[in-house]
C-alpha cells in the first residue's frame, strides 16, 4: 500500500472519529464535584486547573461529567462512556490505562505547630497520642498508615474518619485535618495533597511531615499520580503525555500553589533533613 494512501485513510478515520464525538475539540473529563483540593464543580481544584492546561495544549474544550469518586467511579464514568479522561488517579491502577505520572506525593503526619513533630511510624509517642486516619474499608483494606499502625499494635488510640463522610458537606475528607486544629486528635495521618492544602489553611497552619519509612512491609507510603484513559485509547494517552511534558512548569506551579507535598524530582520535601 502506498504510504500516501495510508496517510489519507488514517486522516479519514480520525475525521470520522471526530464527527462521531460530536465536537472535534472536546476533552471529556470525569471528576468528583465535591473534593478539594483535587476537584469540584466550581473548578477550584488543582486537577481542574491542570486539566485546563492540558486542554489548552491540546486546543480542546473541556466538558465535565461529575461523579463522586467512590467505589464504582471508573465503572460508572470512564467505562460507561461518559468521558475519556480521569485526571488524578494512581499510576498503574487496574482496569484503566494510566499516563506517565505528573507528580508523586506521600502520606504525611499532620500536627499542630506547637506540638511535638512526628516524623516516623516508629515514634514512641504514637502509642499514646490520639491518632486519626481515614477509613476506606475496601473489603478490609485501609490506608497504608492504618495497616502500619496495626502491625505495630497501635490500635486503641486510633480513630477512623470516614473518607466519604457526609456528602452534603463540602470536601468531606477534610474533616480529618480539621480535627487536628479542633484538638479532637493529636495527629492525623493523611494523603499529602489533602493535608498540604487544608493543613496550610488552618489557623494557625498545621505542620505537615512525610511519613517514614516510605515503605512499610508491603505498604508504600508514597504513590505516583497519573491520568487515566480507557485501555486502547493510546491516542489520547499520548496527547495527554505530550501536554504533561510540554507544560511541566505550569503543572508544577499549580501543584505548588495548592501546597501539594511532593516526593519526586520537583520535591520540596525530598531534600535531606
Amino acid at each position, binding site marked *: 500500500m502506498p504510504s500516501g494512501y495510508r496517510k489519507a485513510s488514517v486522516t479519514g478515520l480520525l475525521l470520522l472519529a471526530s464527527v462521531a464525538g460530536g465536537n472535534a475539540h472536546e476533552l471529556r473529563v470525569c471528576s468528583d464535584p465535591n*473534593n478539594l483540593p483535587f476537584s469540584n464543580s466550581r473548578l477550584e481544584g488543582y486537577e481542574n486547573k491542570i486539566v485546563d492546561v492540558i486542554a489548552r495544549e491540546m486546543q480542546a474544550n473541556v466538558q465535565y461529567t461529575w461523579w463522586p469518586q467512590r467505589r464504582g467511579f471508573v*465503572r460508572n464514568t470512564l467505562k460507561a462512556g461518559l468521558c475519556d479522561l480521569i485526571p488524578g488517579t494512581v499510576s498503574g491502577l487496574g482496569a484503566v490505562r494510566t499516563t506517565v505520572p505528573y507528580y508523586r506525593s506521600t502520606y504525611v503526619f499532620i500536627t499542630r505547630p506547637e506540638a511535638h513533630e512526628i516524623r516516623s511510624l516508629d515514634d514512641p509517642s504514637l502509642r499514646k497520642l490520639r491518632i486519626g486516619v481515614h477509613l476506606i474499608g475496601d473489603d478490609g483494606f485501609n490506608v497504608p498508615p492504618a495497616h502500619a499502625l496495626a502491625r505495630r499494635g497501635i*490500635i486503641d488510640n486510633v480513630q477512623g474518619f*470516614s473518607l466519604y463522610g457526609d*456528602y452534603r458537606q463540602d470536601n468531606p*475528607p477534610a474533616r480529618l485535618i480539621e480535627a487536628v486544629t479542633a484538638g479532637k486528635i493529636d495527629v492525623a495521618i493523611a494523603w499529602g495533597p489533602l493535608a498540604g492544602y487544608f493543613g496550610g489553611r488552618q489557623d494557625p497552619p498545621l505542620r505537615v511531615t512525610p511519613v517514614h519509612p516510605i515503605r512499610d512491609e508491603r505498604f508504600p507510603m508514597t*504513590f505516583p499520580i497519573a491520568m487515566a484513559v480507557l485501555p486502547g485509547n493510546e491516542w489520547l494517552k499520548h496527547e495527554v503525555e505530550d501536554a504533561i511534558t510540554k507544560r511541566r512548569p505550569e503543572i508544577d506551579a499549580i501543584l505548588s500553589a495548592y501546597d501539594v507535598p511532593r516526593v519526586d524530582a520537583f520535591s520540596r520535601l525530598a531534600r535531606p533533613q
Partner: protein
Amino acid sequence: MSITRLIVALVCSVLAGTVSGEPSLPRVAQAAAPADDWQWSMPAKNFASSRYSSLDEVNVGNVKDLRVAFTFSTGVNKGQEAAPLVVGNTMYIVSPYPNILYALDLTQPGAPMKWKYEPKPEPASQGVACCDVVNRGAVYSNGRVYFNTLDGNAIAVDVSTGKEVWRTKLGDINRGETITMAPLVVKDKVLVGNSGGEYGVRGWLVALDAGTGKQVWKAYSTGPDRDVLIGSEFKPYYDSDKGKDLGVTTWPPNAWEQGGGTVWGWISYDPDSNLIYYGTANPGPWNHEQRPGDNKWTAGIFARDAHTGQARWFYQLTPHDVHDWDGINEIILLDMEWKGQQRKVLVRPERNGYLYILDRATGEVLSAEPFAYTNSTHGVDLKTGRLQINPDKQPKLNQTVRDICPTAPGAKDWNPSAYSERTGLLYIPHNNLCMDVQTMDANYIAGTPYVGANVKMKAGPGGNRGEFSAWDIQNARKRWSIKENFPVWSGAVATAGNVVFYGTMEGWFKAVNAETGDVLWQFKTASGIIGQPITYKGPDGHQYVAVLSGVGGWSGAIVSGDLDPRDGTAALGFVNAMRDLKDATTKGGALYAFRLP
C-alpha cells in the same frame, strides 16, 4: 404414559405414607405458618420463612406442561432480587433502583397494570451508593404494601389507590447508608434494617408503627447495651456472649461506632413466643488487625421481643469475621425431634458453609454441619458454640493465600432456601466458589491512593460454581444436589405438588422433583434469574408460579454493571469467576408467570 402415571401414583402414595407414618419429620412452626391462603403476602410466604405452598395443582406428573401465562417488564435492567407479592386479585412488584412499585390486575387477560407508584429516590445521590441497586421486595399487610428505597426510606402505599400513606426517612445515603432489604410486618409494626457496612455504617433494625410510620424502637448491632436493647431479659446461651456492653468492649475504643453489623437480610417471627429472629452483617470497615476482638454483635443471630425490641439471646456465627461473611441469610422456624426430645428450632444455612440448627428458645447450637465445601474453618465447637478457624486459609496482607473456600459471598449468600415438610428437605440454592487473595499494588478512591485486596474467585472442587442442594434436616446430610455452572443466586420455592422451583444465572427457570432432584421442566427466560420464585392461586382458581428474571446483583454485576471481563478483580473479585456470564446472558427485567394449559 400409563407407566408414568403409575409411578407418579406410587411416589405420591409412598410420600403420603412417609408423612403420616413417621411424624418425626421436622414440622414448620405451626403458629408461624397458619393455614395456607394460597396468596403470597410476605417475602418468605409465612413467618416461619418456609417458602412452601400447599398448592398441588402443579405436580410431579404435569409440571412438564407448564407454560407462560403472562409477562411484565419492570422497565429496569438491573438485578431483580425481589419476590413478587400476590394478594387477592393483585400482584405487586418492586423494581431495583428507582424502586418503582407496580400493581398488576390478575383478573384481566395479560395481567395489565392497575397502577404504579414511583418513590423517586434521590437521583443526586447516584454514585454515592455506587454498588448495589437491588431491592429484595415488599410486604403486604392490612390494605397496604410496605417497601424500602435505596436512598433509605420506608414507604407505605395504599393498595386501593396506589398512593403513598406515609414515608419515613431512615437512612442517609449521603453517609453511604442504603436500604435494600424487604421489610416484615409483625402485628402493628414494620421492621426495617439498613445496608452499607462497607461505608462504615453502624447497623440497626427499627420497628415502625404500621399506621403512621413513626419509630417505636431501634436496636443497633454495635455499641452499649442500651443502644442494642440488651437488658434484663437477655439470656444468651454461651459465655462468650455474656457480659456488660460487649458491643463496646469487644472492639477497640469507638470502633463500634462505624462497626457495620447492618441488617439487610431476612426476619422470621414466632407468634408463640412473640420473638423475631434476624441476622447481622459482617464487621467493618477496618482492616481486621485494626479491630481485634469478637466485634459484637456482628455476624450473628438476634432473638428479640417483637413488641419492645429487647434482645432475648444472641449467637455469633462468625466471631471477628475476616471474610465478609454477613450473617443475614434466611432463618427457618421448625419443630423437630432432637435426640429423643421435641425441640423448637431455627435452621440457618450460613455463609460460612454450615447448616446450623439452633434451639430457638435459648440460642443453643444443636448441630452445625457443612452443606458445601469449606476449608477455612473446621466446624463448630458445640461446647462453646465457637467456629473453629483454619489459620492457613485466612487472608494475609503480606502474602498470596490460595484456595480459600468459601469466598466472600460465602457458601451461600442472601438468596433464600425453601423447606417442605412433606419431604423433610431444605432446598438450598448456593455457591461452590474458592478464591485467591493477594495484596494489590494500587487503588484509588476519593483522591486517596492505597493498597487494596486483589481477590480472584473461581469454581470450587468439581468445577461447578453453583449448586442446588436438598438437605435432610433430621439426618443432617445432603440427600441430592444439582450442579450448576454459575452460582445459584435465585431463591427457591417448594410446593405440595412435590415440585421445587429455582432459577439459574443463564436464565433457566427449573422445576425439579422434590424427592429426587430430577429436573422435570425448564424454561429459558430472557435474562439470568436472581429473583425469588413464588406460587399462588389466581382469580381463575388455578395455580401459578412466578419469578422475576433479570441478572445482576453482586454475582451478576459483570452483566448488569457492564464490568470488564478482563478485570478479574472487579466486583470484589467476583468477576474473575463470572467472565463467561456475558456470553450466557444479557441484562433484563421482566416478570414471568406460568400455569398449566
